[in-house]
């Protein structure tokens, strides 16, 4: 149960609260997860007054504030189409207006299209208080062991990258059973990520070009059988989606 609620005015105040061990203190973005998911006694730090809902252009692309709502991504003119589409598909209209980008990444599982796409685009998380930038992939890999007291300030995404994604679900808006996302930089660096199962999306390939990606894809999907789909299905269809996406990227300008 949430036993304390704090709404600090400054980042320093927030970080001081978050560094407490007793009671365990967690950052509260939109609240759509924490308001319903706490069996143990915790304190929450509401980030709404910290000015973390911003979208700024940087040299490498865009810096998106941690509490930026998914709907803002859908509507903001500077957000690239691939990210708008993924944010829109992530959840329904009401929840898009509640869920923060950082909160979505912290709580999502492998069936998140947004998480899959951002991992493909090699999104990076800017952490306070150290001021370190870590890749989303590193975070997903270590999420269960992440230290308390840290706070995501922003998420950086590259804009000079082509990203395409596709997925399969039972209905147009159902949770996907398979997601494939491909990102390609002007240098031909290629990242391929799969989702639709497991605790987080999984990186298939990050290489100077897409050679061998089909083998890597099968390797990653080989153990993907769960209650929603078989690995056999995911391997076969994943390969087809990947081929289609690589063709799509080839056809895209820039």
């Amino acid at each position: 149960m949430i036993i304390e609620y704090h709404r600090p005015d400054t980042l320093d105040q927030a970080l001081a609260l978050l560094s407490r061990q007793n009671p365990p203190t967690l950052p509260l973005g939109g609240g759509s997860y924490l308001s319903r998911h706490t069996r143990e006694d915790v304190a929450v730090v509401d980030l709404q007054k910290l000015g973390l809902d911003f979208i700024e252009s940087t040299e490498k692309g865009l810096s998106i504030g941690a509490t930026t709502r998914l709907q803002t991504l859908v509507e903001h003119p500077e957000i690239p189409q691939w990210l708008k589409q993924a944010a829109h598909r992530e959840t329904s209209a009401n929840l898009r207006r509640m869920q923060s980008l950082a909160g979505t990444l912290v709580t999502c599982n492998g069936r998140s299209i947004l998480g899959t796409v951002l991992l493909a685009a090699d999104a990076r998380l800017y952490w306070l208080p150290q001021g370190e930038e870590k890749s989303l992939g590193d975070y997903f890999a270590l999420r269960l062991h992440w230290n308390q007291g840290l706070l995501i300030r922003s998420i950086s995404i590259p804009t000079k990258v082509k990203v395409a994604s596709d997925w399969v679900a039972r209905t147009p808006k159902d949770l996907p059973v398979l997601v494939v996302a491909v990102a390609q930089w002007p240098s031909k660096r290629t990242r391929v990520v799969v989702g639709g199962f497991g605790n987080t999306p999984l990186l298939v390939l990050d290489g100077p070009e897409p050679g061998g990606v089909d083998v890597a894809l099968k390797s990653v999907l080989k153990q993907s059988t769960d209650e929603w789909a078989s690995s056999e299905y995911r391997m076969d269809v994943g390969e087809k989606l990947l081929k289609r996406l690589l063709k799509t990227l080839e056809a895209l300008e820039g």
Partner: protein
Amino acid sequence: MKITITINQQTKTLEVHPSDTLLKVLRREGYFSVKFGGCSEGECGSCTVLLDGVPVNSCCMLAAQADGHTVETVEGLGEHPEHGWKTTRGLHPIQQAMVEAGAIQCGYCTPAMVLAAKALLDKNPEPTETEVRDALSGILCRCTGYVKPVEAILLAARQMRGEQVLSETDGAIPVDWKPSGTSSEENLPLEGSPVQYQTRITPKIWTHPDVATTSVVGKPEKKVDAVKLVQGKPAFTDDIEMRGMLVAKVLHSPVAHARIKRIDVSKARALPGVAAVLTWQDIPRVVYSTAGQSDPIPGPLDTFSLDNKVRFVGDRVAFVAAETEEIAEKALELIEVEYEELPAILDPALSMHPDAIRIHDEPEYVNFADSDPTKNLAAKIRIDIGDVEKGFAEADMIFEGDYEVPKVQQAHIEPHVVVTYWDEDDRLVIRTSTQVPFHVRRILAPVLGLPIKRIRVIKPRIGGGFGGKQEVLIEDVAAHLTIATGRPVRYEYTREEEFIAARSRHPMRIHMKTGVKRDGTITANEMYCLSDTGAYGCHALTVTGNTGHKSMALYVGDGKYRQSPNIRFYADIVYTNTPPAGAYRGYGVPQGYWAVERHMEKIARALHLDPIEFRLKNTLRAGELHPFSTAWSEGREPRPEVIHTVGLEECVRQGKSLIGWDDKFGNPEWHRVPGRPELRRGIGVALVMQGTAIPYLDMGGASIKMNDDGSFNLLIGATDLGTGSDTVLAQMAAEVLGTSVDNIIVYSSDTDFTPFDKGAYASSTTYISGTAVVKAAEQVAERIRIRAAEMLRQNEEISPDEIRLADGKAFAPDGRYVTHQEVAYHTLHHQNQEQIMGVASYFSPVSPPPFAAQFAEVTVNIETGAVTVNRLVMAVDSGVIVNPVTASGQIEGGMTQALGYAVCEEMVYDEKGKARERNLKDYHIFRADEMPVMDTIFVQTYEPSHPFGAKAVAEIPMDGVAPAVGNAVLDAVGVDIDANPITPEKVWRALKEKPVIG
């Protein structure tokens, strides 16, 4: 902690706990328009409020987060236009449009939709349909199929922009919106499709010449409860606060099958704030059935409120009542239970194995008919009509096939909820969201140790039921706890409890065997059904009986076989250690039609016959005997019944025309999508029939009294669970009484005040309760005519028979009239005083079936197996349609539920019997922004056994969508999926076996 929120322009400082959700605080403050859908992750959106003008789900944000912000609820939006001398704002244009467009069925999600629409229109006064659907995507509706809510918002937008709106029934309007597909298929141009039209507010109607002209019946009257529901008035079970009310919680079993060796509740009882903890040791051991059916229950008695054995994951172990929900949940954690685990049967095919463990070994078990707990057999059906073996012998070809249907959930947005309390006379009041208030009272009386007369059941508005509330499911929990504590108790299921501990549609494995002549004449038809009732046998016999009774009755054969059909229906309904199945809209029939209509399609194609002509050659026709009427009647004595009205051929004609069947079926060009080699289009059909009430059993009652102003109180036991039945009953009363619907004040249902009605199930309300209403109204009308004849008498007598009632007046043959109000004053105050009133009841000797032709159009991705349903067209013969708006709402909502059955809905259990689906994210029901285009056509025949020619409409839309989609997939890519839902992997596997060529 204290927070300050401006709610509906009033600033309030409130004391809240840091863990309180905004929903909880708003409801505590009396904003009952904000609803709880039981969900844990904001899936349903019925709790939507506007936070600083933006729609958010108040169930998954903290009240503290709203500190310093503004909140809008529907209470602040508009109000009833008549508040006596005080001028009111009236309804907001969005609310008004929702009422006019017939967008409100149960009304549970309506306030949320109104707010989402307001936020949209405040920002974007000229939205497209796509934008409207996106705005509604966070609010799940299980009733409407979203057609009319979307149209209402577009209508409101036009009105708010000051545009002229022709009327609320201005027919088909071209729209920009197209059905969406999977990611890469979105915005796919569907060349070859007709211009995309949605069925607007009123459906297309074809009328048989026999249908008489009426004044009120047949008109799109506004729902009598619409104004109340659109304002979010406290109309539902949970919308009350009572002093000292306790919160109930149930400890559910974590194991599928076990004896409770030891249960220790001492720590839970000692927890401060806990008022009662009950186990099987604390309450009387009374065996009963939870099935909400008439006496005698046509099924085994195999259930106890609490038992020393648990039979599925989710079964009851203990009840707790506490001061708060948090304390109640803490108390559950403190209950210590030692289980002696027993082998669990999860596969129904193993239930009757000689070595299988016995699930019901309690000595109190009461058999019904052929139930046999020693074989885990809840019910058994063996029906032979004609000479089936002779029919097979005479066939040129025999076709056999196996089909499977899954367990699925009703998923009404309002969870099961009940409030119980002792009234001032020490009578137990049960305020409950039920379809069957009178059955609740009768069934619970012995369970609670009370005589029936000491129980009063009140049914407020219901937020959807679909059969899930034709069950005495949770009323006993609260009632036992009220008896134990003497205090009011509230118990409401969470969404997870709905999935693990409520009822569902029976999963079945069905074998079909059909004998056919080369010309397509069916010579014999056989179905064997292995039906899984789960841990308890509620509705076991009757649901599965209807699987055969309705779906196997449609195809009787042709020629001599038509005169004497050969039909066999055998079924075993077995216990397993899974959550019990029960009643779900369609009541066994959708299961049957999945098998029958997939099977018929295969036969037609194998014989190279047109699938529609083949079907129509063999279907039941007017004047023929319902083949099952001589063999089976829900466990009671069968009586022969002739079918008088069959509009099936016209349904086919109308449906084919609208969907463009002749241009598409068999046209290879149409089946391909230009520029998209991985996609194929397909078109499919299914013909179906249902029933209308249970003959010689279902009974409804009505009473009507006349008021001083010429209005009438109509008291009915029938339960409107969002279907609009209160409205159509009022229309029928108004028609007979010669008045308007707004002069009929409907009150339903309260066991103390309204006549008995068996409740809302079996598609019976319009037919059975409606006839009772008409009979009561005729009594009242007769008294009005007699009095009016006296009042209008001049020199010579006027016969009451010559008095015509219309427009709130009683007319003499010469045109003179007295108003209903004048008649009322005359009878109540002036002369020979009497209360004009009528009371009547009705049961039917027949059950005239509605018929329908269901069409579906799909696009299949041959690489991924993904199926996108692009369009559904349903042409329905439901007799005369009393209200085309509410009736088409039934069809649209039903088709949407059935669409889920076709492609995504199923409940799956692991090897321990634990449910995969526990929320509305994993159990996906269709959202507003992913719907196919849907069209409804009514083919109005005149059913002579009903006063206005009506048959049923509520259940039939559940029957044909899944097989029509299955048949369309076959048409698209040439593969048969015989187990629904048709998931991408199933199609992919079938395509691996049989790839698309070319």
